[in-house]
C-alpha cells in the first residue's frame, strides 16, 4: 500500500479505519490492483515513475459521508482528490493532480433528485452520468434535452466542473454556464448551498443562479475549494426541428467575412446550434474543387421559425462573394429510426460512446496510438486570428515536431461555445515511453509559443495544468496569488485537490 506524501503509516491507517467506519469497509480501496483502476488510461507518463497515481480511494454514498471523509482527511492532513465519474480522459482521467492523494470517488452518489419540465431544469448528484439523466428523462417522457459531451458516460457535474462542453444549442453547450445552484462540502466539512439555495426552504434554487451578494460558484469551476455534492442545470426544452446550413468559400481571405457573418448570426441568436469551422490550410490540389474554408451553422427551434432563420442566414452568407451555400434537410424531433442512424447523436441530445471507435485509424491518423491529450488555446473569434494561428502552426510545426517526426492532429477550430474559438491540437499518447516523452516536450513547447502570442488554454491535462496556469501571469501572477489567498483561507491544511489548475496550498507551493 502506498502512502500519501508527508503522511506516516500510523496516521494513514487511522484515517483509513475512520473512513471504513464511515462508508463501509468495502468502499475503501487500498490494494494495488484496486487503486490502479484510478490510473489515467491516457497518461502521458503511463508506467513511468512520474505518472500521477492515487494512494487509496474512498467511495461515499451520501453527503454526510462526504463531510465525515473530509473531516477525517483534515484531521490527518491527507490530500483528497474528488471525482464524480472520473472519466476525464485527455485531461487526467481519475488520477489526482498531486500524486499520492486519496481519490474521493463520488460515483455512488448517483441520484437524479429533480427534473422540472415546466421550468426546464434538473438537480443531480455527482455520480449521475449523461446516460443516467437521459434515461430518466426518456422514461418519464419529458420533453427536455440534455447536452452531452462526445462521451456520454461522463458525469453531468464532473464535466461542468472541469469546464467541459457539448453539442446541442446555446446556452446549454457551456456546461458550467448552464448550471444553476450548487451544494458544496468545504474543507472543514461544512455544507454550503449557493445562489438561492442559501435560503432555508428555497423554492427557486434552480430558477436563479446569482442569489444575493458575491457569487462564489466560479471558485468551484476548475477549482479545489470544495467538493460539490449537488448541482442544478438548465435543460433545453425539446425543439421541434433542426436544420443545418453549410457555407463554403474558396479564397483564404474569404474566411474573414465568413467568421464575421457566423459571429453576427450567433450573437443575434439566429444560429443557436454548435457551429463548426473547417479549413484546408492552403491551396487545393490541382484539379480538385477549391474549398479553403467551410462553416456549418445549425439552427434548432419550431419548424416555421427554423425555416425563416435559415432564409435569413442564406441572405447574409450570400453577401460573401463566391460563397457556396448548401441547406441540409430539416430534421424533425423526436428522431425516427432512419434519422437516428444518420445523425451525430450528441447534436440531438442523445448520449453515446461512438467517439472512441472513431479515434481509430484514419487518413489524418494512419497510426493511432489509442490515447491523446489536448492542447486547447482560446484565440480571438475572427478570420484574421484563425489565419494567424494557421500560419503560426505551419511556421512552428517543423521545430516542435522534430522535423515532422512527431504527428499531431489538428488544429481543429472549435466554434461551439458562444463568443469563443478554441484552436485544438491533439497529441497522441501510446505505449512507447520515448514517444510519450517527446509528445510531452512538444506540448509544453506549444503552450509557451502560444502564450507568447497571447493565446492560452481553456482546459488542460492534469500534468500540464501548472505550465498552462503560469501563462496567465498578468501583473506578476496577480490572479494566481488571489486564488492562493482564497485557498489558504478556506482550506488551510491544503487537503482538497492540491495543484488542480495550478492552485497549490501554501505548504506545497514551492515544492
Amino acid at each position, binding site marked *: 500500500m502506498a502512502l500519501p506524501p508527508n503522511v506516516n503509516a500510523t496516521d494513514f491507517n487511522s484515517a483509513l479505519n475512520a473512513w471504513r467506519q464511515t462508508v463501509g*469497509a468495502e468502499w475503501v480501496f487500498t490494494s494495488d490492483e484496486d487503486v490502479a483502476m484510478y490510473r489515467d*488510461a491516457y497518461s502521458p507518463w503511463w508506467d513511468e515513475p512520474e505518472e500521477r497515481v492515487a494512494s487509496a480511494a474512498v467511495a461515499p454514498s451520501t453527503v454526510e459521508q462526504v463531510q465525515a471523509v473530509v473531516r477525517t482527511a483534515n484531521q490527518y492532513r491527507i490530500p483528497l482528490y474528488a471525482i464524480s465519474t472520473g472519466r476525464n480522459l485527455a485531461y487526467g482521467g481519475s488520477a489526482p493532480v498531486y500524486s499520492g492523494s486519496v481519490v474521493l470517488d463520488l460515483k455512488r452518489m448517483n441520484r437524479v433528485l429533480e427534473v422540472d419540465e415546466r421550468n426546464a431544469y434538473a438537480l443531480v448528484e455527482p455520480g449521475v452520468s449523461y446516460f443516467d439523466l437521459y434515461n430518466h428523462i426518456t422514461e418519464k417522457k419529458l420533453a427536455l434535452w440534455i447536452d452531452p459531451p462526445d462521451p456520454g458516460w461522463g458525469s453531468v457535474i464532473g464535466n461542468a466542473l472541469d469546464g467541459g462542453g457539448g453539442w446541442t444549442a446555446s446556452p446549454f453547450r457551456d456546461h458550467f454556464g448552464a448550471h444553476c445552484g450548487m451544494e458544496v462540502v468545504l474543507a472543514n466539512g461544512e455544507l454550503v448551498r449557493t445562489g438561492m439555495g442559501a435560503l432555508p426552504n428555497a423554492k427557486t434554487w434552480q430558477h436563479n443562479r446569482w442569489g444575493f451578494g458575491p457569487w462564489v460558484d466560479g471558485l468551484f469551476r476548475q477549482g479545489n475549494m470544495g467538493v460539490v455534492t449537488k448541482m442544478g442545470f438548465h435543460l433545453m426544452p425539446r425543439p421541434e426541428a433542426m436544420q443545418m446550413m453549410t457555407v463554403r468559400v474558396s479564397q483564404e481571405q474569404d474566411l474573414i467575412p465568413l467568421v464575421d457573418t457566423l459571429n453576427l448570426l450567433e450573437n443575434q441568436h439566429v444560429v443557436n446550434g454548435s457551429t463548426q469551422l473547417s479549413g484546408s490550410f492552403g491551396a487545393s490540389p490541382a484539379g480538385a474543387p477549391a474549398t479553403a474554408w467551410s462553416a456549418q451553422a445549425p439552427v434548432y427551434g419550431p419548424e416555421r421559425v427554423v425555416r425563416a432563420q435559415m432564409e435569413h442566414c442564406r441572405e447574409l452568407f450570400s453577401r460573401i462573394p463566391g460563397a457556396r451555400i448548401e441547406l441540409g434537410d430539416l430534421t424533425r424531433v423526436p428522431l425516427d429510426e432512419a434519422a437516428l442512424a444518420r445523425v451525430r447523436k450528441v447534436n440531438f441530445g442523445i448520449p453515446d*460512446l*461512438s467517439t*472512441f*471507435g472513431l479515434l481509430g485509424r484514419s487518413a489524418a491518423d494512419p497510426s*493511432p*496510438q*489509442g490515447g491523446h491529450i489536448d492542447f486547447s488555446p482560446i484565440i480571438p473569434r475572427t478570420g484574421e486570428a484563425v489565419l494567424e494561428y494557421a500560419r503560426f502552426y505551419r511556421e512552428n510545426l517543423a521545430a516542435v515536431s522534430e522535423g515532422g517526426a512527431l504527428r499531431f492532429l489538428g488544429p481543429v477550430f472549435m466554434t461551439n461555445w458562444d463568443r469563443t474559438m478554441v484552436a485544438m491540437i491533439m497529441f497522441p499518447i501510446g*505505449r512507447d515511453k520515448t514517444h510519450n516523452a517527446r509528445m510531452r516536450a512538444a506540448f509544453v513547447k506549444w503552450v509557451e509559443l502560444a502564450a507568447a502570442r497571447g493565446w492560452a488554454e481553456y482546459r488542460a491535462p492534469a500534468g500540464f495544468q501548472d505550465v498552462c496556469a503560469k501563462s496567465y501571469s498578468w501583473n506578476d501572477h496577480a490572479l494566481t496569488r488571489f486564488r492562493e489567498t482564497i485557498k489558504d483561507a478556506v482550506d488551510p491544511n491544503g487537503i482538497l485537490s492540491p495543484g488542480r489548475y495550478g492552485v497549490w496550498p501554501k505548504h506545497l507551493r514551492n515544492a
Partner: protein
Amino acid sequence: MTNRREFLRTAAAATAGGVVTGGAAAASPLPLPLHAVLIETTFPQTHAFGASLATAASAPLLHLRQGDITAAWLQHIAPIWQREPVALAGLTLSSSLFCLETLTSLTPLRVQFHAEHVLLPDGRVQHRVLRGGDSAQLNEDHLHRLGPLWPTHLADAVAVHRRADSRQRLGPSVAALTPSLPDGASLLTSWIIAPV
C-alpha cells in the same frame, strides 16, 4: 451496485450450497459462464470467433460497428451489470474493450484475458497474449501455426477459460493505448471481462 466483497460473499454462499452461480472463483472447476459475446462486425475473423464461442457458451452474440458499444451497453450490459457482475467475452476493436473496462469501475469485474491480433495487409496475423493466456491454455505460437483457423481456436480457448483466482492481482489492462502498427495493418483485441 454490487461491490467485490458482497459479490464474493454471495458467490461463496451459493457454492457452499452446491449451486454454481459463477462465483467463488478459485473453487470452481467449471469454465467461466459467459453472459454475452461481442464482436466487431467488419472483420470476417470476428464472425468465425463469434459463431463458435456463442454456440459453445450458449450466449447471445452482440454486434458492434466501428467499436461503438453504446447500444450493447444500454440494452444488454448495463441493466445486468447493475444487478450482477457477469462475464463477457469478445473479439473487437481495442476501444470497445477499453470502454467496457472503464465501465467496470467500482465493480468486481476485471479484464482476465487480453490478446492482440494484428492483421497485416498480406494476410498474416501477429498474435500477442497480454493477460490470462495460461488459464485459457493459449499461446501465441499455437495461434500462429493455426493460420486462418485462429479465430475458432481462440473461441474454443475462451470457452474453457477458468475464472482468475481472486488472489490474482488484476489492475487495468493496456487496452486504452494501442501498439504501433505497420502500415495498412488492423488491430483486433480478444478479451474476457469477468468477476474476480
